């Protein structure tokens, strides 16, 4: 590492880059019965919602069903959306519920978000190797997508879903807690574990010496 000072703020897209200006107009039109406005919203978010349901369920068929149900429920309950949050955030919450229902149905004894998280010694990273700048650029986009899909799939579901909401969908810690019925400290401890485990899993692909 060349600098002893770190910028602690990840370079994330601002909400204004995620939400297009016309979204409230489209939502209002869809509420008024304009099906094409709702289809525009579906087209805008279908890829992200499918990635979300795929990441949570780790099953293609379940992911597809959960995505479909999420969009259908969103349309049917659109009148309940009061605009207090982004439409996308509201949609994500519906999709997460659908995906978790699929996951629990398939793995009823495995998936519990309520279990205590051990914060013991194993959190201390085992491999401490520098990755150098822009490690993701060393891979083609499809290759990178495979790596990310594989590593997040290996996470425990209770960590995976928190990381998905907090760091991929960029919900706030409080929104994530509310969506999953967890306390804020529980979200924070799962998020820390998820980030550390993913960092460790990605280390084999990104440490200096790979792809160089």
């Amino acid at each position, binding site marked *: 590492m060349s600098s002893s000072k770190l910028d*602690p703020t990840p370079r994330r897209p601002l909400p204004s880059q995620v939400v297009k200006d016309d979204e409230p107009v489209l939502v209002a039109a869809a509420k008024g019965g304009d099906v094409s406005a709702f289809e525009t919203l579906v087209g805008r978010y279908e890829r992200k919602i499918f990635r979300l349901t795929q990441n949570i369920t780790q099953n293609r068929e379940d992911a597809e069903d959960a995505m479909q149900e999420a969009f259908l429920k969103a349309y049917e309950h659109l009148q309940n959306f009061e605009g207090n949050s982004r439409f996308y955030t509201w949609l994500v919450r519906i999709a997460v519920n659908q995906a978790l229902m699929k996951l629990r149905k398939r793995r009823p004894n495995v998936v519990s978000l309520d279990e205590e998280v051990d914060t013991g010694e194993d959190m201390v990273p085992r491999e401490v190797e520098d990755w150098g700048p822009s490690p993701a650029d060393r891979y083609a986009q499809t290759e990178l997508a495979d790596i990310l899909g594989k590593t997040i799939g290996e996470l425990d579901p209770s960590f995976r879903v928190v990381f998905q909401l907090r*760091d991929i969908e960029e919900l706030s810690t409080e929104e994530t807690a509310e969506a999953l019925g967890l306390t804020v400290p529980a979200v924070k401890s799962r998020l820390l574990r998820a980030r550390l485990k993913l960092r460790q899993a990605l280390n084999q692909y990104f440490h200096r010496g790979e792809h160089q």
Partner: protein
Amino acid sequence: MKCKTIITELADYLDEALDPALRTQIEEHLGKCKDCRVVVDTCKQTIEIFCNSEPAPLPSSTRVRLHEALAKRLRRVRA
């Protein structure tokens, strides 16, 4: 400050949710400890890589089934 404290506070540090005094202590430690600097930096990169990754296009068969299901249900809701 011990390295373990850096790990414990890592999520809040990256999310800028720490009080300024603790943040200063952490940055002083990071200035001296290369291993912790690397852990913080690679953890930050992990978040960025996932956050910035573009979702793959929907498989065409999945997309067709989604829009067929929507068309069917939306017609029913409107009727």
